């Protein structure tokens, strides 16, 4: 049976890169690990689609924010591990600041005027 890909509600636009960078800031991980980590830490709220994850990783590699190397996993399987670079760390800082500013802004908008 052929399936037409249906659109699921996505992450907030522009946040995937930040989530990946943040996840990697705790140590090197492979793609599956990154997806798993985001899912766990968000209590299953955020699922990273593979269709977005791997293109995003390529984009980060291209920008030089992450580095990739093939290593062995604990189960002795070859996997590509991604490590945050110095530039990536800086970028994470930038994105976090932007994100927080945005959240704060949204919060201000959503607050009831009486409370102010």
């Amino acid at each position, binding site marked *: 049976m052929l399936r037409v890909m249906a659109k699921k509600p996505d992450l907030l636009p522009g946040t995937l890169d930040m989530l990946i960078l943040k996840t990697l800031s705790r140590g090197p991980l492979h*793609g599956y690990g990154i997806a798993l980590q985001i899912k766990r830490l968000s209590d299953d709220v955020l699922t990273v689609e593979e269709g977005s994850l791997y293109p995003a990783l390529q984009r980060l590699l291209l920008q030089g924010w992450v580095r990739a190397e093939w290593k062995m996993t604990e189960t002795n399987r070859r996997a590509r591990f991604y490590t945050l670079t110095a530039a990536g760390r800086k970028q994470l800082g930038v994105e976090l600041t932007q994100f927080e500013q945005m959240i704060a802004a949204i919060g201000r908008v959503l607050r009831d005027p009486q409370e102010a």
Partner: protein
Amino acid sequence: MEVLFLKKLGALLRRRRFGKELDEEMGFHREQVERAFIAEGMEPKAARYAAMRQFGNATRVKEKSHEVVGFRFESVVQDARYALRQLAANPGFTAVIALTLALSIGANSAIFSVIEGVLLKPLPYPHAEQIVRLFLSSAEYPKFPLNPFDFRDFRARNKSFQSMAAFTRGDMQLSGSGEPLALSGFGITAGYFRVLGLTPALGREFDTNAETPGNGRQVILSDRLWRTRFNAAPDIVGRKVTLNMQPYTVIGVMPPGTEHPGNDYHSLPYGESVDVWWPFEFAGNPAQRGSHYMEGIGRLKKGVTAEQANAEMNALMAQVSRENGGGDWKILVIPLYREIVGANQRMLLVLLGAVGMVLLIACANAANLLLARAAARQSEVAVRLALGAPRRRLIRQMLTESLLIALLGGGLGAALAEGGVKALVALLPAGFPRAHDIHVNAMVFAFTFLVSVFTGFLFGLAPALQASRMDPKRSLYEGGRSSTGSARQQRLRSALVVSEVSLACVLLIGAGLMLRSFLNQLNLDPGFKQDHVLTAVLSLPQAEYKTGADNARFFDRLMTALRSVPGVQYAGAGSDLPWTGYDENAGGFTIEGKQPLPQQQFHARYHMATPDYFRALGTPLVRGRFFTDADTNDAPKVLIINHVMASRYWPNEDVVGKRLTFDDHPKEKDWLRIVGVVGDVKDKPNSSGAEPAFWWPHQQAPFFPEMSVAVRAGGDPRQLVNALRDQVRQLDPLLAIGNVRLMDQVADESIATPRFSFFLVGLFAGLAIVLAAIGTYGVISYSVSQRIPEFGLRLALGAPPSGMQLMVLLQAMRLALGGAVIGLAVAAVMARAMSSMIYNVSPTDPFTFLSVVTMVVAIALLACYLPARRAAKANPMLALRAD
């Protein structure tokens, strides 16, 4: 940015490894997911499918990752390859579209090269935008030459011009070594070439000293004359050459590419048409400013516009008229560019419009064919959509296909344009301005390329959007026969055909109007019989033929000699031939017992004729008699006038015997008696009416330096060319014969422009109607094949086959009539733009409009003949089984 580029480049070079690594990485990911599912207690097989499902479309993920690191052009190359495969798989389809596009793009490029050469290319003078032409203008004479002394005042007093010059036609005859040669020449004032921004290659141009009468005969040669007649002698400047039997000193040689800016009065076409320039001398009494034969040209000062100059010149003219008691003249300052190409601009733009419509029709046709094929490709598109191909990419792919076809058509079209331009230039009317500037060049190729790309988008976009908008599920379930989509498609295709038909209608109406106008001009009674007449121009040098009597004696002897040549019926000579220019006498004569209307003058074209001039040309005598050999200088003075002059100045009177005079205080002998009235000949074949004209008998006429000979032959007039040359040589071996032509040719050239535009618009209209017929056929045929089961069923239920035919015919009729109605409405608006190009036909000529509708309907019927037959023969069993 550069780093990014280098990294991408690296990825491009290692793309195979990139793909493998990505595969491995994703494979690992899928395995991990699978394991997780098993750990949750799932069956291994089910876990695997679940993992695969969760991972989704691996190919698509890979593609997206590729896109991140890849260059845009990679996918473009992919699209192009795919498109090429598609096109190669359907060679017939590709060929049909590419060929129709090639025809229409080629025609567009050919017309564009004419426009580029004639309208867009700058004139061959530095800062040509500063150059303007100067004319006089009045209510009666909208465009009139200047008086030399008026010009001299303008030149001295104006503040708007850097420089100003005047010129007048004056051909010369070169003798000396070799055959005498008739040269086209111009008398020019000092600084004429400075106005044009040209400098002599050798020597210098005339200064104001040369304008004083008697200051020595000087001449400037054209490059062509210098090379052909003087072997490009480097020491030519200062040498004497014999012109009009007199020695002239060469003071300069103009470089190649010195183009004559064109002139209105005794015109010589624009281009390298002049052989010699001689200094114009301001002779005579400056107080007498009645004769007008100079054409003005000037170079505006920087920042001065033609309008400002116009205002200043009109103030100047008013001043000059006050001082000298001149007439009520205004001054026209016309930019040179407009003066040269203005008359043809509209025609060329109309042609561009016509050929653009052909391209639109070809686009509609191509779109129609693509739509039909898109229907056949529905399942392919559905599968690709289902497999996750993004719609944007599908649209891009289809557009790539149409672009490739368009570029193929454009390439073929460029090749066609090469040949087409040669044919066009050969077809152009003689003397068409800037014809030699028309080439297929880089500009034309760029235009062709742009048009091709535009075309590709235009005809590819609708089918691509249509195809990508389909719902893959439905299409796959229905096995490629979706009914709702096809209804919408049918509407789109019908709309395309209706627009094709309407455009074709517009073109057909344009062509029809031009054909009628052309036929009108062909069937005009020109006032003479053009067949069997040989003509030539003779210039009698004033050095040898000093008086009118010398002139008359020469032509008497020549006519007598020619009459004795076998094959000659009549031999005549006159100051000019029909349609080759005229001189005008305004207010210069008095009619016995008549007063001109207030604010007007008696005026007439004035000519001179030998006794047999009218017989040789076949101009009929309306009343009275022709001249005879008895009308000598000693005999009573006589005149022949034309019919218009008779009816205008002597309405309802018998004019023979009436008198007029050119003297202000006439004695009895100064009155000229009218002895004959001849038929009218218009100034130009499409002039709205003939103007008053009179002829002096050559024995009594003032001196006309240039005379035209007309010989009527019993047989082929071409066989008389040598006899004519021989007879002239026997009388005067140093006389050059110029412009030997048949009157047929003269007449032919005068209708060359309407013929040219009619031929092209007709050609385009023909192309348009064929394309529209193909389009109609395509749509009807497609809809019939869709409805074959329906027809079969109807037949099986007892409907008569003729009923099926009628249904198809009605469908075609709806398309044709819909298109025709829109076409007629558009044509009725647009034909007004053509009104200056058509002669004696209303732009909404009902006959033309009606014929076009009939024709379009007939062609639509023809186009649906085969599909209608197919509908009537639909086999019910076959149709039902096929379902």
